[in-house]
C-alpha cells in the first residue's frame, strides 16, 4: 500500500542574491492499493516528477510524508528503496553494455544474490519477450527494446511499488500489447504501479485510477467513471484540458 500524505515540496533557488521560490507540490495526498495502476496526470511543470521523486526518496518533502506499508521516506529510506522500482523513461542506458549485464549490475546494487538475479532475469526476459537481444549491446537495440530493458532493470529486485515517470519516449512500448499485458499482470500479482504522463490516451489504456495534478495541486482523484461523473463530462481529455486551459474550465465541465 502506497500512501502520499499532505505532500509539500518547495524549491528555493538563489540566483544572483534573489531567492526564487517554487511551490512545486502543494498538499498532495493519495493512496494506491496493491493491484492498482495509478495514473498521475498533469501538464508540464505540474509537479509530477517532483511528487514521484519524493516517493522514491530522491528528494525530501518540504513537509508531509510518503508511506509504503509501515515505512516512510523520512525515516526509512533504505526500506523504501528496496520496495521501489524507479524508472524515468527518458533514461538512456549506457549503450556499451548488454541488457543481461545491466540486470546483473542493478541486481548487485540491490544486494541480490547471483542465484536470485538469475531467477529474476529468466522470469523477466521471458515475460517481456526479451530473450533475442539480451546479449546485444544496448546501442544496437531499437527504442522498444531499450524501453523493455529499462523496465526489466527497474523490476530486477521484485519491487512492490513501480514508479514510472513520463513514458513519453517509450510511448509505443508502454502501449504495446506485450508491455501493457505484462504491467496489468504484474499489478494483479499484488504490486502497485504509478505512472505519470501528460498524454491522456496512454493513461486511459492501462490505469485503474487517476489523479489530475495542476500547478502542484491534486484537482481530481478517482476512477475514470468517478471523474467523468464529477465533471459531467464524457472524456478524460476534456476534464484535463478544462483544468489547464485558463477560462475554458467552465465550458468543458458544463458541456452536456
Amino acid at each position, binding site marked *: 500500500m502506497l500512501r502520499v500524505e499532505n505532500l509539500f515540496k518547495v524549491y528555493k533557488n538563489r540566483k544572483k542574491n534573489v531567492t526564487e521560490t517554487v511551490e512545486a507540490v502543494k498538499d498532495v495526498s493519495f493512496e494506491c492499493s496493491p493491484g492498482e495502476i495509478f495514473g498521475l496526470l498533469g501538464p508540464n511543470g505540474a509537479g509530477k516528477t517532483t511528487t514521484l521523486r519524493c516517493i522514491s526518496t530522491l528528494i525530501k518533502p518540504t513537509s508531509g510524508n510518503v508511506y509504503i506499508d509501515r515505512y516512510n521516506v523520512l525515516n526509512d529510506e533504505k526500506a523504501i528503496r528496496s520496495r521501489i522500482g*524507479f524508472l524515468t523513461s527518458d533514461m538512456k542506458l549506457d549503450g556499451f553494455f548488454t541488457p543481461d549485464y545491466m540486470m546483473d549490475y542493478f541486481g548487485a546494487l540491490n544486494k541480490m544474490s547471483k542465484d536470485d538475479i538469475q531467477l529474476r532475469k529468466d522470469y523477466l526476459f521471458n515475460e517481456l519477450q526479451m530473450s533475442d537481444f539480451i546479449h546485444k549491446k544496448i546501442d544496437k537495440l531499437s527504442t522498444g527494446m531499450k524501453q523493455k530493458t529499462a523496465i526489466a532493470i527497474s523490476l530486477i529486485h521484485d519491487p512492490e511499488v513501480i514508479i514510472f515517470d513520463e513514458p513519453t519516449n517509450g510511448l509505443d512500448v508502454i502501449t504495446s500489447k506485450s508491455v501493457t499485458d505484462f504491467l496489468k499482470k504484474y499489478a494483479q500479482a499484488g504490486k502497485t504501479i504509478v505512472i505519470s504522463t501528460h498524454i491522456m490516451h496512454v493513461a486511459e489504456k492501462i490505469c485503474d485510477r487517476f489523479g489530475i495534478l495542476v500547478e502542484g495541486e491534486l484537482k481530481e482523484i478517482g476512477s475514470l467513471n468517478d471523474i467523468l461523473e464529477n465533471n459531467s463530462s464524457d472524456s478524460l481529455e476534456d476534464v484535463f484540458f478544462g483544468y489547464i486551459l485558463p477560462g475554458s474550465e467552465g465550458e468543458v465541465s458544463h458541456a452536456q
Partner: protein
Amino acid sequence: MLSDSIIILKKELRRIFTDRRMLAMLVLLPLLMLPVMYSVMAKMGASRDSEITSFRSTICLYEGIGNETVMGPFIESISTINTELEIVQLSEVEAAKLAITEKEKELLIVMPDNFHESLVECSTFDIGVYFNSTADYSQHAYSRISQVMASLNGDIVRERILERDLSEDILTVFTLNEVPMQYDLAKEGSVIGKIISILLPFFIIIYLFVNSMKVGLDTVAGEKERGTLAVTLVNQVSRLSIVIGKMMSVMIAAIVGAASSVIGLIIGSKYFMGMFGASGAAISSYSMSTLHILQFAIVIIPLAVLVASMVLIVSTFARNTKEGQGMIMPVYFVVMIMGMATMQTGDVPPKWMLSTPIINSLLVLKEIFIQGASWSSITTACLSSIVFSVILIYLTLRMFNSEKILFRI
C-alpha cells in the same frame, strides 16, 4: 560498504577496459605519444642535417691586391669544403654581399690587400667572412669555413715554430680531461634520468588529468544527463559507496595514463635521447630500481586520487558532460602551468613550490627519477595529496547528498 564500491568500480572498469576505443585513448595514446614525437623530431632533424651537409654552397672570394703568390694554401683549405668557388673582383664585392642577404650565395671571403707582407713579418691580419645567419646553408658554410681557417692558422703557426727550432709543445700549456677516464661522477643512470625528468612531471600530470576527464566527467555528469544516476540512487548502495567506487575507477584510469606515458617516455628516451646529448652507455644503463618504483607509486597514487577527486567534484556539480568540460578547462590550464613550472626549477626548487600540492608531488617524482628523493619529501608530497583529496571527496559527498546539486535545473 567497500563491497558496494567494488560493484560500482567493477562496472566502471568493465566500461573502460573492454572498450577498444576507450583503451586506445587511455593507454595507447599516452604510451605512443612520446616515442612517436621523438622519432618524428629525430627523423626530421637528421634528414635536414644531411641535406644541409650535402648541399654545395657557393663561396665568393676576393683575393686582395698583390697576394697571388700566397693564396694557394687558402684556396686549398676552402676547397676541402663541398663548395663552388667564385673569385670576385673588388667591384663585385657589394653585389656578392647582396646575393648573400638574398640567400642566393652562401659566403663572401674578403682577404685584405697585400697580406703577404703581414705573412712575412709575422704580424696579424684580418680576413672578413660575410654570411647570413638566417640562412641554414650560409650558417653551415660559415661554421665549416671557420673550422678550416682555424686549422690553416694552426698549420702556419706550427711551421713558424719549427722554423725557429722550437718544439710545438710550447703552443699547449695544458689539456683538460684528455686522459681517458670517467670524469662525470653522476650516479650510474642518473644522467638519462635527469633528461627524462625534465619532461616527466609535465607528461604525468597531463595524462593523469586527461584520463581523469575522459572517464570522470561521464561517470557522474554523464549519468546525470542520461538519467541513470537517479536510478542508481534508488538502490541499496550508499552514496559514499557510489562516490568511492567512481573515484577509484577515475583514479585507475588516471594512473594507467600516467604509467603509460612514463613507459613511453623511457622507451622513447632510450632510443632517441642521443640527440639530447646523452651518451649511448648512459642511456642503455638506465633502469628504475624496485625502491624507486615503490617511491614512485607512493607519490603518484595519492596524486592520481587528488586529480581524480578534482575531476569528480566538477563532474558532480555539473548538470551534464558539456557543462563539466567547460568548468574543468580552467582547472586543466592551471594544472598544466603547474606541470610546466616544474620543468625549469633547477636542482633546488623555491620553497613555495615544495608546499604547493600537485607541484610538490611532481617535483618529488622528478627527484626520484634523478635517483635521490628524501623520504621526508616523499611523505610530504603524499600527505598533502591525501589531505586535499579527503577534503574534495568530503565535499563531493556533500554534493551527492544535496538534492539541490544533484537535481539542479
